[in-house]
Each structure stands twice: as C-alpha cells, then as structure tokens.
C-alpha cells in the first residue's frame, strides 16, 4: 500500500509539473491566465495519474497527448467552462470559431504534456527505484478453500465462491471430485432412455469454473489435525515423485460428498442391481437394454425371452418413476426394429413399498402418474419390497419375478467417509450443521447438499436432499465464507421449496409449482407439465453450450427414431 501511494504521488507530481510547463502553450489562447494555469495543472495531474506510458514512447505520447487535446477542448472550452460561467455550451458554429484558438492551444498543450510526462516517467524509472505495479496474480500463500465433491452442491458452491470473491488473489479455491464433470441428474433418465447424449447433460468442471483448481480424485481420508485431505493414489508406483499431489491442504473445508446408494443390507441387490446415480449407470442401463433386445431377438424359448425383456425398477420416488417412464418409452419405441419380439414379451415393473408412488407430490398427482404409466403398459407392485436379488430373478415380499434387470432407486445414504469423522451425525448418517452451514463444533469445516442435515432457519424443518435446496445452500455457504473472511456476521440458511417436477415419459409429466408469497400450490399434469419440465430444467442446465446441445438432441428426437446403437459391451 505504501508503495502504491508513493507511486500515485510520483505520477501526480510528474503530471502536474508537465502540465505547468506545457501551460505556456495554453495560456496564450485563454483570456483568463490563472484559469488556464489551473486547468493545465489539473489536467496534467489527472493525466499523470491515469495514463501510464510505456518506457521511451516519446512519439506515441506526443501524438496521444495531442489527440486528447481535442476532447479536452470539447469538454472544457466548449461545454463545461461556459456552462459554469452561466452562458451555456458554446457549440454553435460561430461560438466554436471564436474558441478555435483554444482548440489549437489544447492540442499543442496536449502534445507538450505527453512529451514532458513521458520524459518525467522515464527519468523516474532511471534514477529512482522501480515503481511498484499492482499484481492480480495469485499470491504465494492465499487462504485455501477446499471443496470436496463435484456434484450439484460442490460445483455450485465453487461457482458462488468465485462470484462473491471475484478475482481476489488472496484466496484460492480447489475442488476435488471423483469425476471431471458435474452431472445434471434431473435429465439422467433421458440418457438411459436414449433421448439425450450422455456428455450433453454433464458440465466439465474445468471449463465451467474460472479460477478454481480442479483435482480429479477419490478422497480416502480427511486429516483434521493436519488440515488436509488424502486422495487415493492415482499412480501404480509406490515411490512415485508425485506423492505430494495426493495430499491437499486447506484453511476452510467444504464437504459436498453427496449420497450413495443404500442397499438396505441386501448383498444380492448390491451385486446384481444397476445403480441409477451416475452417467455411467445410465449408459450401462441403456446398453444393457439394447443388449437384451438383441439377445431376445434370437431367443426361441418364449419364457427365456420374457425373462430377458422384463425390467424391474425398485423404488417409486422421483428417480424410479422417471427411469420407469423413460425405459418404457425406449423399449416400446425400439420394438419395431425387432420383428421377432412381441409386445407381450415386454414388461416394465415398478416395485414400491407404499400404496402410492411419488410421495413427494400430492396424492392427486401421484395417482395421475400411476394411471398414466399403467395406461402406457407399466406394471406396479405396490406395498411390496425387494428382499433379495440373484442373477435371473428378483424376490419381492410376495412373489418372485424372473428378470435379468434390476434397477435400484429405493434408497440413498450419505457418503460412508462421514462415518470416520468425529462429527455429529443424524440418524441416517448425514453430518449435522448449524444454521450457517458450518459443521457443529468445527469453525473451519462446512457441509451442504445430500451429505449434510441442514435445518431451514425459518421452518425449523430438515431440508430435503434435492437439487434446488443444494443450489441455495451453496449460495448461502459462499456468502458466509466471504463474510467470515471479511469479518462480517454470517447468515442463516432458509429457503422455501419452489415445487417439484417429474417426467413420466413421452410428452407427459407432473408438476407442483409453489406461488411465492401467495401460499398457493399450482398443480399441472400432461403435456403442459412436460413442457414446463423441459423448459425449467433446460434453463437450469449449466452452460449455454450444453443448453444448445440438449435442445438439438430434443429437436432431432422429434423427427428421427431412437438410436439403438450399442456403444459398450457389458460382458
């Protein structure tokens, strides 16, 4: 700061001196000598402060200074001074002709000012210490904020931190993620159903974040003593010189670990079922379905064929219903390409433990969704649970279903890493945080999203683990981190849900939209809700490029059949 103020004082001094000397050319064209002198010094000072010429650029400074004489004449002689004097701007032809000498004076003054200021700057560079220049480059020991988890919560937290801190070189951000992209999970069912290309619903972390260092890796340990996280080694050699890269130190830690599938202790389910959480899961499901269709086309035994073409989805929440609808559309849509397969061979079964699906929505909409999917051929096993699964069959509480496909969406649990930490956890294993999203008992550790139990400060209720809450938690967390850094008070988190949307398949969906401040809930279903679903989630998809790609995919789908190319062989 001291250097900066010395810099400014020196430049002001050079400018004012140059202006004073150059005023010789100006005063002869002004009637008011003191005014001309004052203006010359003021302009010179301003010029010296604002304009930093390159070394030995005499000709450039001469010409630039002369050029600036024109707007100076326009602003000062033609407009400002006459207005201050009460006679109004002198911008008519006759008035400007009268002021013509001042135009010449200002241009020549400007050229002299440029030349003299350049000389002064060069002399200062030669005979004094180099003038310090402010650098925005990241400082050597910035305050390190580390975010663990590259999902909705983690990436949005990083984006918001970049926004609130701006290009502040005193703070650095690092994001550790197992994947190199953030998955937009609401559209995952469309990938499994072949409506969207997999990469189009993922936003690469490196290109989405401006100044956050992205590290791809799996966190194996959090060392709270040393304030670092340990990543799984990404190299085979044990004595690799890159060992240092496996530890990342922090000053503030943000946990956004998300959730993992909860198999409820069913080992058979864990080994045989398809997950539905990641992009790879969706790709595997789609390719598995195509693979089964290809095999079923050659299968002569009708029982065996039916087994292949029976798809069981466990869980009647949003994820389960959406994948059921997408799979149903996809399977029925590609039937025409497999002439030996009959419609009756195909069966989509949704297993749910309660008597209605979509418990997050109203009963009306839940019933609507059930009726719609049933009309489209989906079979429901309500008030039933999956008790075991083996290759070739799934055992429910009341029956067995012969199938080669079980998709598990029946439960999630917070990341198992949290169990190893000395934090207070709630019943399901999520870390308890206070109203400001700091982990209870830890001043420099924060948590949000599915891995955290966040209490809504207004309602006192636990926030549901959904994307819209994760996004708002990320915003509050970023502001709180910034406030803590600047010594201001922190804000408690509160957010009222805006509603919920669930797509049921081709051109139909359910939607509940909360009207803010009116305490009303609007319910929609059918094609309008489907358009609402697509419009809202398209707008939420990160990145203009991704929006364009998804829009193109949806447009192509209008005119062409589903793609049945098998891209990976699951054997």
């Amino acid at each position, binding site marked *: 700061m001291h250097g900066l103020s010395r810099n400014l004082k020196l430049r002001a001094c050079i400018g004012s001196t140059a202006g004073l000397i150059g005023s010789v050319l100006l005063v002869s064209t002004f009637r008011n000598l003191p005014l001309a002198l004052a203006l010359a010094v003021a302009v010179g000072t301003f010029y010296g402060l604002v304009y930093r010429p390159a070394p030995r650029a005499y000709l450039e400074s001469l*010409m630039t200074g002369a*050029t600036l004489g024109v707007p100076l004449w*326009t602003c000062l002689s033609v407009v400002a001074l006459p207005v201050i004097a009460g006679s109004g701007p002198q911008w008519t032809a006759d008035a400007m002709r009268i002021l*013509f000498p001042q*135009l010449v004076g200002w241009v*020549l003054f400007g*050229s002299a000012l440029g030349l003299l200021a350049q000389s002064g700057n060069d002399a200062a560079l030669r005979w004094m210490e180099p003038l310090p220049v402010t650098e925005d480059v990241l400082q050597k020991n910035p305050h390190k904020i580390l975010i663990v988890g590259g999902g909705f919560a983690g990436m949005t937290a990083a984006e918001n931190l970049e926004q609130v801190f701006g290009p502040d070189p005193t703070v650095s951000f690092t994001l550790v993620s197992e994947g190199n992209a953030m998955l937009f999970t609401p559209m995952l069912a469309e990938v499994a159903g072949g409506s969207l290309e997999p990469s189009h619903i993922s936003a690469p972390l490196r290109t989405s974040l401006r*100044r956050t260092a992205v590290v791809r890796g799996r966190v194996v340990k959090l060392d709270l003593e040393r304030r670092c996280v340990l990543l799984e080694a990404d190299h085979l050699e044990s004595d690799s010189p890159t060992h240092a890269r496996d530890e990342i130190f922090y000053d503030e830690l943000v946990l956004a670990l998300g959730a993992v599938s909860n198999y409820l202790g069913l080992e058979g389910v864990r080994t045989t079922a398809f997950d539905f959480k990641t992009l790879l899961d969706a790709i595997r499901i789609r390719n598995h379905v195509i693979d089964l269709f290809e095999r079923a086309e050659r299968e002569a035994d009708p029982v065996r064929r039916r087994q292949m073409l029976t798809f069981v989805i466990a869980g009647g929440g949003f994820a389960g219903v959406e994948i059921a609808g997408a799979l149903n559309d996809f399977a029925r849509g590609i039937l025409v390409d497999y002439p030996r397969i009959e419609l009756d061979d195909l069966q989509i079964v949704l297993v749910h433990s309660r008597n209605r699906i979509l418990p997050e929505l109203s009963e009306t909409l839940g019933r609507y969704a059930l009726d719609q999917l049933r009309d489209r051929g989906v079979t429901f096993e309500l008030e039933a649970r999956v008790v075991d699964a083996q290759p070739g069959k799934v055992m429910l509480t009341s029956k067995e279903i012969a199938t080669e496909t079980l998709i598990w969406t029946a439960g999630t649990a917070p990341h198992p890493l949290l169990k190893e930490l000395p934090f207070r956890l709630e019943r399901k294993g999520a870390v308890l945080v206070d109203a400001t999203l700091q982990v209870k008992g830890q001043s420099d550790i924060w948590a949000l999203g599915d891995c955290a139990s966040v209490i809504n400060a207004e309602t006192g209720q636990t926030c549901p683990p959904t994307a819209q809450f994760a996004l708002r938690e990320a915003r509050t967390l970023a502001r709180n981190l910034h406030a803590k850094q600047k010594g201001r008070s922190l804000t408690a988190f509160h957010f009222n849900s805006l509603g919920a949307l669930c797509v049921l398949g081709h051109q139909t969906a359910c939607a509940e939209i909360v009207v803010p401040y009116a305490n009303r809930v609007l319910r929609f279903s059918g094609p309008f809700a489907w358009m609402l679903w697509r419009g809202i989630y398209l707008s939420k998809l990160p990145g203009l490029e991704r929006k364009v790609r998804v829009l193109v995919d949806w447009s192509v789908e209008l005119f062409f059949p589903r793609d049945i190319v098998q891209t990976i062989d699951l054997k």
Partner: protein
Amino acid sequence: MKTSHDDAIAGFLGLVVGSCGGFLLWRLGLASSLAGPLFGGLFGMLFGLLLRHRASGPGTGLTWGVGLSFLFWLALPAGIVPVLTGSMPSMGMLDAARSHFPQLIGCVLCFGVPLGLSLGLWNTVRLEPNMSSMYLGRRIFGGGLAGIWAGWILEKWMGQVGFLPQVSQMVEVRANLVGWLLYIAFASVIGAIFGLLFQKEVRSYGSGLGWGAGYGILWWFLGPLTLLRWRSGQPLDWSAAYATSQFGLLVGHVLFGALLGLLYAVINRICVWFLTQTDPIRREPEGLGANTLRALGRGAVASLAGGLVFSVVMVEVGFLPTVANLVGGTSPWLGFAVHVAISTLIGMTYGILFRNEAPNFGSGIAWGLVYGLVWWFLGPLTLLPALLGGPVTWTTKAAHLFLPSLVGHLLYGAVTAVVFLLLERYHGRWLRMDPRLLARELSRRRPFGTAAPALWLFVLGVGVLLPIMLG
C-alpha cells in the same frame, strides 16, 4: 555500427525527400525558395531519425507522416508563426489557420506522405525482402474488392454531390456511364492501395474503420483538391474557399474510407479463415461465440452511459423531436427512446469493432472519439436526411447546424469507450489469475508502438477542425 549506419541512411533519406517536398512547396508558391527546402530538409531528417524504427512499413510510415505533418502545421503555420511575424495577435487564430490552409495540404502531401512512404518502403525492403506473392495478392485482391464494394454502396450519395461528373471530366468525357466506370475503377485501385499499405495496421474491424477514415481524408486532399483539378487542366487551388466548395466530398471520402477499412478487415478475416490452416492448440478456451456475445453485451451496457450523456446534448439543442420523426412521431420522449435504441445498437457494434484495440484508457478514449466522429459524418449528415426521405446534407451549412451533435458524438464515443474498457478490464482481472490466458489476451490486444496515435491525431484533428474552419 550497423545501427548508426542505418540511422545515417534514414536521416539522409529524410533530408533528401524533405528537401524535395520543400522544393515542391516553393514551386507551388507556398514557401520561399530558401525556407521551403531548408525546413523541409530539416523536418525530413528529423523525421527519418525519429521514425527509423517505427516506420516498419509504408502504411505505418505514411500514418506517422500525415500525423506529424498535421501537428507540424498546427504548431507552426497555424499556431506560432503568425504570432512571431506579428500578423496575428495571438496563437491559433482562425483567420491565420484559414489563410494557411494551403500549407496544411502542402505539409501533408509534400512532407508527410512522401517521407512516410519512402521511410516505410526502405524499412520493408531492408527487413522483409522476401514477402510472398500470395500475401501481396491477398492484400491487393481484398483491398480492391473492398474498394469496389464501398464505392458501390456510396455511389448514389457521391453522385448527389456531383462527384461522378468531376471524375468523368478527367478523361474529358461527360457521360454518366464513363463517370461511373471510372469511379468504380478508382475505388478498386484506392482499395487495393489501402490493402497494400495498411495490412499490418488493420488488426481488427475497428482499426480498419479508423485507418480507413484517415485514408479517406488523405484521398480528399489528394483527389478532389489536387489530382482532379490538375487532371482537368485547372490550376491547383488549396485555399480554404475551394476546400469549402468540396466539403461534400470530404464527407463522402471519410465515409468511403471508413467503409473501405471495415470491409477490408472483414474480407481479410475471411481470407485468413479459408486460406490459413487453423491450429487446434490455439483454440479459444472460452469459445468464439462466448467472446462475441460478451463484447456485444459490454458494448450495449457501455453505450447506455454514452447515450445518456449524448441525450443531454440532444435535449439542450431540442433535437429529440427530429429523432422521433424517424419512426413517424414528434414526441421528445419517443425521440429519446429511439435515441437510446440507436445508441445501444451503435454501442454493440463498438464492442465488436474495437475489442482488444486499447491497451490503456487513453487509447480507448481515442478510438471512441474516432468512432464518434465517423458516426457524426454518417448519422446526422447522411443517414438522418436519407431516412427522412431527402438527399444527403453534405454541406458546410449542415455541418455547422450539426456542430452541437458533433460535440455529442465525441462525448458519446469517449464515454462508451471508457465504460467498455472498464468492463473489459474487469473481466481481464479473471484472466490474469492464469498466466497462460493472460499471455493470450496480451497477444490479441493492440500493443504499444503502433502508429495508432498518429492516426488518431490526424483523423480527429482534421475531422473536427475542418467543419469549424471551412464555410
């Protein structure tokens, strides 16, 4: 040793060319037999020594030449000399400037142009002896095409101010078709010369527009004021009175030049896309579309500030109802809305034309002023009467009437440029966090040491001076 040898050659070249220029001035009756060659030689020698490194090509040298010669004229014949000789009570009197108007043209055409071209050519031969023919061909082709295109666009308005008959008189044929053919031929030749001279200066569309405007002013000195009169057998008349009668062609030449420069930049960019293999390693990290959208957005925001400042001028002179006439209304509020819409569009184009042109605020303001000046020639003098259904008003009378608007356009340009640069700088702070991106940004931005300051002075100086001086 080599450096001092080159200095000597440059100085000697300047001395010879400057002396010849001074001799020519004496022959034209604009200087004495001693003062002309003597001062010319001195000026030329100084020019050669100071610009030996800067006049890296004929176009660069020409730009420095015309800029310095204009400053020389402003300082001496129009400024200090009348005071020293006692003919005027103080420096910079209008009558002195008017009476020395021939010296302005003389300085530019007899000193600035030959000195700049000769020094630039010498440096080109010395430093780039093996310039590829394809590279030259692209310049000539691009410039010629841009010239034809610009000429064709402005043909109707140039015809309204009687340029085509003047051109046809050069071959002593009074046929419209001949005049038109000659006009297009000249436009293509002038365009091709632009391409040959200013390829290096035209880094983007904005600098193309700026250099074109300066080139147009130069061709007004050279064409209507000099060559056309000489070719039609009339004695040279560089007086302010004759220049006043040719004011309409000044406007036409400025617009032709600006359009030529802009079109040349576009054609040049297309040639690069089609003919040069792009390197995927140098792909934009943020996407070409993202940068363009950002420039448009910044330009629109910046123009709001500039437009608000300009609207104060418009309110003061009561011009808003005239602007409202463009959409068939008369209400000042409608005029204000139309004015804001127009200024937003112009600001958006500023963003596209001038991004990365300004390494600092001084440069940014200068480019903004040039842009505002070009829009003054294009807007009130050309488009406004054309859109209201009348002929263009390329007269000194119209120029005098719209002088307040000139002030407004200059302020608009400067304010828009400053705000745009602030927005560009703010985004740039993000880029400085990554040295690789910073290096890429710096390589795109116009560096220090180009002839842009000379161009600004010439365009702004002459462009603001002439409407006031003439008439």
